[in-house]
Each structure stands twice: as C-alpha cells, then as structure tokens.
C-alpha cells in the first residue's frame, strides 16, 4: 500500500495521463474502511462462543480455573471457549464500561464491594443469580457470612439478591522468615502490637527491615491491617456499610501514626515508596528482608519459587484481619450464555475443584478438609477458619466508595514518602465524606 505514495522527484511537468494514483488512493481508502468493518462484525457473528475473563495470574485460582475450563471444553465440544486474561486495574477502571456494552463477557471474575460489583448490580449490569443459586443449591452450600459478599441491595453489599458468587477466601497476614527471626534472637512470632514493635526494633538492630512495595497496593493493605488491629465489627459496619459515623481519630489515625513512627525509626526501606509490590515480594523470597505483610494470594508464589529458608505466617496482632471471600464470579446481564456461565460457577464450587484449589495453595470455601494434602493449605485453611469463627474478617478499605482505592494508594505512597500521618488521614476522610451515599 505504501507504494502508492512513494516519492517521485517533484517537478513541474504535468502528466495528464496519471490517473492511476487517484484510483489507487480511492481503492485503498475503501479497502481500509471495509477492512475495519470486517473486523467490527466478525466477533458477534458466532453464537456458541463462550467468553470468559479473569485476572488471576500465577495464583492457585488461575491454575484451578484453567483446569476447570479445560474440563468444560471437554464436556461441551461444540462450544468455542474464548478466554481473556485481564488485569485487576482494567476491571477496576473500565469494568462498568465494558459490562454496559455488547462486548461484555459471558462470565467474569469481578471485584467485590460497593464500588465495583455494587454499582454494577445497581445499574442492572449484572445478572441476578437467585434463580441459579436455588437451582444449584449455592444458597445452602455457602454460609451466609460468605454469601453476603455477593449480595447487594441498591448497590450496598451485605444482603439482598445474589449478583456474584464467592468461590474462595483470602486474608492478609505477616509472612516471616523463620531463620532470620531466629538469627536475630526472636523465637516466637509476636502476639501483641507491642511485641510486633519490639521485634521490628530487634530486626532493625540486626540490620534488617521489613519488605513493602509501598508504591503499590501493599501500602493500602498495611495501613488497613494496622487500623483493623484496633477495630471491632462495629467499626467495619460503620466504615463499610455506613451504619454509623466513623471516628477518624481512632483506628485510621493509629494506622497512619504507626506507619509514620516506623518510618522515623527506620523499620522500612527508606525508598519504600518507590518500590513495586512484586519487587518487595521478590526481595522477601530472596531472603533480603525477613518480613512482609501480604495476602494469601502470595502463597502459591512462595511455594513455587523454592524459597531457600523456612518461612511462616502470623496474623496481625489485635482485633480483625484484612480479608474477605475472594473476588466474585459474575454473569453480566448482557451475557449471551448465562446457563453455561452458571454451570461453570457450579463446577468451581464442586468438591473436586475446591479441593484442587486447596492443594494448589489457594483458600477454598467448601473443601473437604481430609482431602487437603498441601501442608501450606492445611495451615492457612485452619487460620482462615479461625478468623471466620471469630467473625474477624475486616474486608478491604477501598470498598465503601468508587475510586477510593486509588485515593488511598496515592495517599499511602505519599505517607511513605513524607511521613505526614495527619495529611494521610485527612485525604482518606475527605474523600470518604464527599462520596459516601
């Protein structure tokens, strides 16, 4: 095509016979248009394409769901499964836009909470799953405390119709390098905030700091983890479901002050605010830093990347833990194959795949404990059960209002950069107050 416009030595001699150029140009323009049209029409033509999106990568969920999808293909040889790996950020930022178009997938992993699944359900972009829940018995299989993460009324999470199905759990805790702790003279993990502080001081004296990728989500989780250490379910209810006023001088201020204090005492890498989450995890796995606050989604990586030291986990000492049922599986309202999608969700909830999830290092909701062979899962599963029994899940801090995550992320990065705790709390409070319903 480029030939058409190749340079000709410019001259003043007209060639009246050179009609060719124009004809080619016109043909190319028409061709370009029809090409575009073709590619625009192609995807919607076929009716047995089953489009599935998720954004799990290198996690137990990704491995398990991929296996389930293979089984689904085998069971439905006439169906063309079209899988796309998205990113969390894509769903967070343009999720509703996609759901509100004819490009919506047939089944998708979706972020939970008011800001995402909530606003989508309110706008009628997600299929009401009550019918399928009854048909497959999800409403009785899953405990109400777990189902609540998929239930929304007027976009507020906690009760109402089911719009998304939780299929796994997750919580955040401290991962620690047992060898390094021992070398620094710490024999048992801390059980109170004071002990945790003391251990950090001991490690610092031994020349070691905790890992954190404060440029990314880890700053949000650590702050909320510290806030929850001072919290009870009443705080969670007030903060997450607007049941009552939030006292910003308490939990959140404690969290901000603690981080600010730890920065001053040198318990973090001084450049933490420029470090990415994956870099921090890699540093922990390489044994460069003995402690990191992270979620169960790191478990599989810890197993896979043969870590050369003994490691273990302990919960953030104090009240509640950051965590919830994991991301939801949803069926967009515009899904063309809702029955297949429901069938797939049901597969994921079946003992076969719940056990597989557990043995891949994930945190199943309905696993048969006896069938779990992975020692790590046995340990985390027990810890998770304990959290559930104590009603100690504190959810995630960004759920209350849309866009809150990015506000917290930016404010957290700044907190790690300048240590200004008051400014951090004010940013969080202002945005919350301006945007709560």
């Amino acid at each position, binding site marked *: 095509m480029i030939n058409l416009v190749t340079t000709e030595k410019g001259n003043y001699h007209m060639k009246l016979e050179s009609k060719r150029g124009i004809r080619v140009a016109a043909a190319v323009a028409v061709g370009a248009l029809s090409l575009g049209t073709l590619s625009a029409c192609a995807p919607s033509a076929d009716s047995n394409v089953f489009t599935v999106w998720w954004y799990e990568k290198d996690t137990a969920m990704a491995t398990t769901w991929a296996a389930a999808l293979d089984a689904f293909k085998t069971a439905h040889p006439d169906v063309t499964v079209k899988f796309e790996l998205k990113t969390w950020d894509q769903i967070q930022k343009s999720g509703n836009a996609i759901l509100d178009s004819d490009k919506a997938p047939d089944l998708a992993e979706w972020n939970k909470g008011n800001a995402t699944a909530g606003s989508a359900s309110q706008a009628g972009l997600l299929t009401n799953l009550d019918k399928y829940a009854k048909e497959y018995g999800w409403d009785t299989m899953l405990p109400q405390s777990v189902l609540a993460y998929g239930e929304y009324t007027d976009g507020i999470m906690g009760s109402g119709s089911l719009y998304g199905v939780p299929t796994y759990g997750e919580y955040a805790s401290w991962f620690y390098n047992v060898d390094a702790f021992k070398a620094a003279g710490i024999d048992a993990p801390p059980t109170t905030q004071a002990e945790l502080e003391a251990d950090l001081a001991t490690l610092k004296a031994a020349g070691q700091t905790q890992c954190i990728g404060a440029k990314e989500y880890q700053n949000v989780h650590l702050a909320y983890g510290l806030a929850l250490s001072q919290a009870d379910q009443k705080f969670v209810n007030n903060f997450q479901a607007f049941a009552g006023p939030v006292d910003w001088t308490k939990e959140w201020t404690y969290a901000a002050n603690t981080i600010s204090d730890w920065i001053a005492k040198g318990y973090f890498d001084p450049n933490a605010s420029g470090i990415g989450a994956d870099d921090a995890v890699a540093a922990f796995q390489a044994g460069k830093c003995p402690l990191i606050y992270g979620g169960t989604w790191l478990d599989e990586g810890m197993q896979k990347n043969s870590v050369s030291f003994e490691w273990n986990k302990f919960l953030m000492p104090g009240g509640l833990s950051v965590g919830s049922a994991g991301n939801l599986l949803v069926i967009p309202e515009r899904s063309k194959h809702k029955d297949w999608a429901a069938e797939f969700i049901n597969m994921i909830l079946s003992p076969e795949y719940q056990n597989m999830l557990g043995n891949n290092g994930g945190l199943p909701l309905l696993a048969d404990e006896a069938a779990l062979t992975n020692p790590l899962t046995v340990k985390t599963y027990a810890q998770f059960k304990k959290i559930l029994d104590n009603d100690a899940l504190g959810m995630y801090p960004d759920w209350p209002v849309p866009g809150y995550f990015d*506000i917290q992320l*930016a404010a957290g990065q700044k907190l790690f950069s300048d240590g200004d705790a008051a400014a951090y709390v004010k940013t969080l409070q202002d945005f919350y107050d301006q945007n709560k319903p």
Partner: protein
Amino acid sequence: MSITTSKAKSLARKRSEAVNQRRGYYFYLIPGLIAFVGLIGTAFVWNIYLSFTKWNGLGKPVWVGFNNYIKLAGDDVFWQSFLHAIGFIGAMSIVPTFLGLLIAALLFDYIEPRFGNAPTTVMRGGFYIPQIVPLTITGIMWVWLVSPSTGVINTVLQNMGIAAQPNWLGDANLAFWTLSVIMVWLQIGYTIVIFMSGMSRLDPSLSEAAQIDGASWWQRFRIIILSQLGPEIGVVLLTTTVAALKVFAPIYVMTQGGPGNATQVPAYFSYFNFFTTTKVGYGAAVATVLALLLTVMAIVILYVQNRQSEGANKR
C-alpha cells in the same frame, strides 16, 4: 497561515476572477467538514453538557448547573494540577528550546561544516528517537531505569559507593523533578529538528560575512542565528507549551499523579475522575476548563503566525 497575507489576498482576487464556478469546490469540503463537525464538534459539545451534570456513567446524567465548576474552584487538587502543568512548561518547553537551539546550532553550524553530513544526521536522529517511540514504552523503560530497588541508575550509584540512593519517582519532593528530566529527554529531539530546518533557510552570506569580520562562533550564534530564528523559536515555545499543558501519557505510565498528588496534572486528573472515581461530570468540567485554556493558546498561535507571515512577506 499565509492565506491571509496581502500577497495571498491579491492572488485570491486574481483567482476568483478566473474561476467563476467556485461552487464546484464546495463539494470537496463536505466530507471533511461533516466528519469533523459530526465527530469532534459533537463530542466537545457533549462534553460541555456533561460538565453541567452529575453522572457516574450509568443511567441518566442529572443536570446540576454550575455545581461542578464551583466545586472545581475550591478543589486544591485541581489547582495543584494546573501548577504542575505550568511547571512542566519549563521541562517540556523552555529548557528543550534553549538546549535545542544550542545543539541545533552546534550541529548545523559547527559539526556539519567540519565533519560533514553523516555524523550530523546520525546525531540529530539519536536525539530524535525518543520522540518517535510510543510514550508508554519509554515510560516503562524509565520506570525501570529509576526504580530504587532494581533500577539501573541506583545500581550505578551503589557501585560508586553512594549509600543514600534517591527514590526518584517515589519521593513526593523528587518525583516532579525526575519527571522533568525525563521530559527534557523526550522533547529535545523535536526542538533540534525544527531549529535545524529553520537554520537551513537562513542566508549563509550573513554568516560568512560575519566570519570575515572576525566574529567568534558564539557571537555569530547570538547575533545571526538567534535573531533570525524568531519565528521558529516562537512556534516551538507555543506548541511545546500546549503539549506541556496537555501532558497525559507520561504521567499515566510513570506516576499516576502520585505520590499523593505530587505529579497530578489536569489531563490525568480529568481522566481519573472519568474512569477511576467515575465522577463523569466533574471530569468533564476539568477537561472543559483545560480545553478553553488551550483554545485561547491556539488563538494566540494563530495570531502570532499570522503576524509572522505578514512580517516575512514584507521583508
């Protein structure tokens, strides 16, 4: 815009006498004009409408009058973002113009006469390459180069035995300046290319005369090159200023406006409101204000170019 020059006007008169059926030409205007008004015009008017509404992108927008603009006036982040954009004029416009002039003059007037065309072209190309590569890609590259833990720059510092390694993009006080340096890296190729082309139109006899008079290179640069490159300098300053006020992709890729709002700019702030907090009306208001500001700048550009081309014609 030379069509408004006096010379062009007289040409036009002549032509209009010769061409009686001007109407035949209107037909050629139709496709472009329809496409433009239909797409850009509609979109822009739509955006202005949205700026008077409250909308989360779903359902129907709710008319709220000037509320968004009133809120905007009292929003610190908004004002900060404008301050940063104005700050980026330094890194994207003023510094590259100065450095570009100097490098272009050295290449054109010093290197080329001594070393020939080939090294000149290669060097010009080298400076220009950052302009040609997509910003998202150069963004990835720089994020990695300046990463405090695995980055190239801090590795060099470490090898040199410097313990206090800067946290280039993670430090709220440093991020703006790090970005500024990267912007200079990005922009300079553009200014060099334009200035070199401008120099090629200068009358060489002037320079040669000056040389015979024994003027040093620096004097020649100041007197002859600078004084005659007025049009190019003006245009480069204006277009790069527009670019600085519009800057988006480098922010999106490298800092997302952070830490905190340390590198927030209007374009990203409006995107952030559209797609992150889904305050579409508010984002539209930010975008509208920016658009109005830039339109004023555009009028200035038109005016300056008009004046210049008239001046050029008189000469």
